[in-house]
């Protein structure tokens, strides 16, 4: 009888311990291996590889030795079957490039906001014209950074294999020449375990 009571108490404590959710801060750069879908580690590896490659490419090194060319990022085309926030990838890439001091950016997503602000300053009558922005003085972009993400998925009864390929290109806008291009390949597999989780 005593053994039964102790056993029931133990089961009760275990259930309580397992039912209580536990929240912890984790390292955002830690490797996550939760399934084969696109994840934070993939995003970080792609951004690091692409930026390292771009900044160390000899013609780019030469071009940025004495000046900081202006570029803008076009949308990354998602050719996979997953929902991937490609803007998150380009944000990380542009952050790293900007912080390197080698390039400058124009943000094409904020053109409307800038036009609204200029119109407000010029036309609302609320801003002194001496302090308002001068129009027609923005710096034009010289380069466009763009690319795409694709995947190949294969599976059988035991294994699911997902191959990702991220390609990034830098085009000189005036000449149309592709000045730099590189790609990052990632393969993730998920196999069915014989025992356990």
């Amino acid at each position, binding site marked *: 009888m005593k053994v039964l009571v102790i056993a029931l108490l133990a089961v009760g404590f275990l259930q309580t311990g397992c039912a209580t959710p536990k929240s912890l801060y984790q*390292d*955002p*750069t*830690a*490797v996550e*291996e939760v399934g084969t879908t696109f994840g934070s*580690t993939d995003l*970080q*590896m792609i951004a*690091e590889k692409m*930026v*390292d490659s771009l*900044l*160390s490419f*000899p013609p780019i*090194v*030469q071009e*940025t*030795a004495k000046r900081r060319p202006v570029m803008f990022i076009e949308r990354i085309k998602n050719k996979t079957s997953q929902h991937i926030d490609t803007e998150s990838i380009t944000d*990380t890439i542009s*952050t*790293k490039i900007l*912080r*390197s*001091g080698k390039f400058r950016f124009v943000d094409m997503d904020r053109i409307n906001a800038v036009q609204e602000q200029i119109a407000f300053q010029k036309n609302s009558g609320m801003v002194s014209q001496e302090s308002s922005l001068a129009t027609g003085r923005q710096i034009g972009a010289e380069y466009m950074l763009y690319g795409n993400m694709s995947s190949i998925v294969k599976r059988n009864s035991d294994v699911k294999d997902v191959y990702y390929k991220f390609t990034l290109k830098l085009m000189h806008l005036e000449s149309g020449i592709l000045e730099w291009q590189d790609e990052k390949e990632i393969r993730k597999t998920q196999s069915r375990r014989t*025992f*356990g989780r």
Partner: protein
Amino acid sequence: MTRIESISKSVRSISLLTWAVAACLVFTASATTGCSTAGTTATLEETPSGEYAQYISTPNSGLRRKLSIESMAMRNAGDLRQVQAVLRNLKNSTQRFQYKVVWYDASGFAIDSESRPWNPVTLRGKDTFPVQATAPRASATTFKIHVKD
């Protein structure tokens, strides 16, 4: 009755079910232990004199036994430093580990350390892997390569 006969009699007296439960518990314990993450970190540093000594610095000697630096090279891409350290798997079995390269400026401040990701690597037995990295900024002068399993 001899001692051996006594022991074998005791063993036979324990029910088959009890042996099965004990075997399951031992298997579960060993499987759980085998799946646990050690999480040790080794730091490979450039010596102050600028020469590259082939060593692994780690509080856990287990990682030192598994990996070694075969060679290390530095070069400049414009005003950005680049490093390559070739790691060799000393074991015959495949090793899985992660590495991260953190750069420091002349004052010893880490540059963008929070944004440097851990990179997973699977290295076959006795095989090599080149760890390469480019400094994020021209102000980077030194680096540390962190390795963990």
